[in-house]
């Protein structure tokens, strides 16, 4: 309070903050997210029964033409968003469920070899391109949506474990934790109250980036045909299978591609906004 902070604290703290996003950017972000998200979540409810198949790549069939096997593109668009979003969310949750305990265990252990044994293998995983890992695993695992969930979670596992470990370790080494121990608090209580709180903050900051990353991976996997068949209703699959007809019925490729781009951009902008607000609050605390 009365100790004047050195100028560097203030200036660097303020400077490192990204520029305040304007209201225009917020509106753009909300629209970018709302349109694809609305289509993905509500689409399956309003899609209705499948109409009769027409010729492949027929521009006049339906609103957006027909796809590579003559299905209505608009109906496929309505059906195709849900699976990507659900898969990405499931993968993120699974990565946290498995990764957080590993990271916490590594941070709390007093035996160095346990720490090493838990994290070194993950280090090796972390250093490999995630798509490569995905393709390798996909080439042996059965092609289902749960395979993709598992693979994407596995790819995110090292990151999650590391982040949790670092967050917990930083807190566990604090003088205030030692002071609490001297006050007779049990290790478990300290871990739950103190470290848990810090780790939750870390995870809250990380969740946005992680969901967007999972979304990216799931989309790429679907596009490459991992875990999906060619006739799956899935925006990424649509882009892949309808590519040959881009000259005849461009909407069959372009609409799902634009929806994916919009959702990804919008999520990035929104999470960035949330993060910068959180950072702002922490600075003014």
């Amino acid at each position, binding site marked *: 309070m009365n100790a004047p902070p050195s100028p560097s604290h203030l200036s660097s703290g303020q400077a490192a903050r990204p520029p305040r996003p304007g209201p225009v950017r917020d509106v753009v972000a909300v629209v970018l997210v709302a349109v694809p998200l609305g289509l993905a979540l509500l689409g399956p409810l309003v899609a209705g029964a499948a109409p009769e198949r027409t010729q492949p790549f027929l521009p006049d069939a339906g609103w957006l033409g027909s796809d590579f096997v003559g299905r209505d593109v608009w109906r496929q668009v309505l059906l195709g968003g849900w699976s990507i979003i659900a898969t990405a969310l499931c993968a993120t949750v699974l990565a946290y469920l498995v990764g957080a305990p590993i990271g916490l265990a590594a941070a709390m252990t007093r035996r160095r070899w346990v720490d090493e044994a838990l994290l070194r293998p993950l280090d090796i995983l972390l250093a490999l391109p995630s798509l490569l890992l995905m393709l390798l695993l996909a080439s042996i695992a059965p092609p289902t949506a749960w395979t993709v969930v598992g693979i994407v979670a596995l790819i995110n596992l090292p990151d999650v474990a590391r982040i949790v470990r670092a967050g917990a370790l930083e807190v566990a080494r604090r003088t205030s934790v030692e002071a609490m121990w*001297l006050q007779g608090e049990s290790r478990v209580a300290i871990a739950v109250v103190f470290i848990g709180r810090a780790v939750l903050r870390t995870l809250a900051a990380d969740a946005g980036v992680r969901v967007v990353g999972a979304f990216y991976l799931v989309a790429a996997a679907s596009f490459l045909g991992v875990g999906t068949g060619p006739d799956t209703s899935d925006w990424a699959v649509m882009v892949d299978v309808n590519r040959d007809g881009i000259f005849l019925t461009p909407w069959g490729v372009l609409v799902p591609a634009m929806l994916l781009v919009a959702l990804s951009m919008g999520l990035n902008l929104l999470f960035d906004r949330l993060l910068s607000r959180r950072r702002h609050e922490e600075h003014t605390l």
Partner: protein
Amino acid sequence: MSHTPREPASQERAADTRVPAPPVVSVRGLTALAGPHRIVDDVGFDIAAGEVLALVGASGSGKTTTGLSLVGDARAGVRLEGSVDMAGTDVLGSRPPAGAVAYLPQHPAAVLNPVRRIGGVLREIARRHAVDDDGAPPRRIGRREIDARIAAALRRTLLPPPEELFGRFAHQLSGGQQQRLVFAQSLLCRARLLVVDEPTTGQDPLTRQRVAAELGELAGDGMAVLLLTHDLDLVRDLATGVLVLRDGGVVERGTTEDVLYRPQHPYTRSLTRAHFAGPGAASPESGAPAQAAPGPPRIEVVDLIAGGGRRRGARPILDTVGFRLAAGECLALVGPSGSGKTTLARCVAGLAPRRAGTVRRDGAPLPAAARRSRTQRARVQYVFQDARASFDEYRTIGDQVARSAVRLRGLAGDRARGEAVDMLARTGLSPDHARRRPAALSGGELRRAALARALLAGPEVLICDEITAGLDAVTRAGILDLLADLRQSFGISLLVIAHDMAVVARLAGRVLVLDGGRVVEEGSVDRVVAAPTHPLTRDLLDAAGAHRDSDGATATARTRDSPSAHP
């Protein structure tokens, strides 16, 4: 550290500054406003070449804001008024002329580029200021001459020669070397004014003596020095004039001698009395229990080996150390930084693991870190040096302090909170403090709260790590009184770590001197102060307390006057 003791540079300098030179910097009516709050209020002073002006005051008195306004650094949200005149131009609110002012912050590492090698930066500076000594306009000078100038600056500041230093990064230097590197840079850019912020906070007395000598030499070279500090020993050793600040305003100004030994203002008097009173002022009754009845030791440490990393064969930080602490006794751990004082204290408290040796309490062995029972933890309490870091920033002080009573004495929440408020009151904090979060308390207040937290556990042994470091004289005296008083009323044994021999003499009955992880001297404070046997102890005493017993003589030796301290 190969430091050869030298005569205080200030005395040689006295002769050089007989003719008052025009001031290097002239400050008039400096006022800093943060909203309606006046951080600095109408401060004015001059500093001439070769003079050292000390700005003295507690933290929050406006020292740093004043100092920073001279280096062209304003904090966000602070409005500056008045004038800072350097060589005929007002530099307030702008950057002073290139290279004219150098600034050494409390942590010198902050101003050294972490990713540039030292040599490259020094060459850049030297090339930029490649002016002939007679002040002729810049001309291109060769690399050889540049290197020669750098080598001279390094010699002047007692740094290693270029071939050793140039390839290194700043973080590979010790704190003292970093300080001196900034001095060398200031020499290379021919700075006329050097602003130094708290150069000795948290340093041992030997370091303080070295810093004083180095700054004295720079001033002897004709630099004007502005010293921001609350270290009155440094002021006495170094400054030619003193300005005492309180709440942003000047309460007293004058020559060092006048201000330190004939203070006029009550605040200055309280500062100097608290500081220079020394061991003589220690209330006799607080010294008495130091000679406690020799009973069985409350704490006994035998052949303790600890620290030094996990690798086998690595040199331990503590190498076979032992001592005894009787009931009601106060033992001081003394030694230079890195001598193992804190490791020893943490082993006793059960905070650090040990490799070998035993710690006994009342004859029964205390387990090593992490395996202590709640009672064992309660009996040996620790007050951390960094009090702020020892509190959880999200909960109120009262709640946190009360946990000691809840967990260690089994009190219910309400009663524990009541006792916490009472104990905080004993340490001088109000119920209002108890309701605040740590961020709303000052460093001194947090130390009191940390003390209350430890005492509420009902300890038999209290370990205090540098409990007064970095505090101004008045706050420090308050804490020391409190400790002495608590020891009397609770009869607890104290183990205090201190750099400051005045603190040792004030509190402790016995002293243990550590160096390089071993005990080099042990004995009663009286005996050790009067007749130290180990050279390190002698150095520590020389650096810290030697002039205390001859204050009169030192004062009469100071006959310099400091005209510029009266603008």
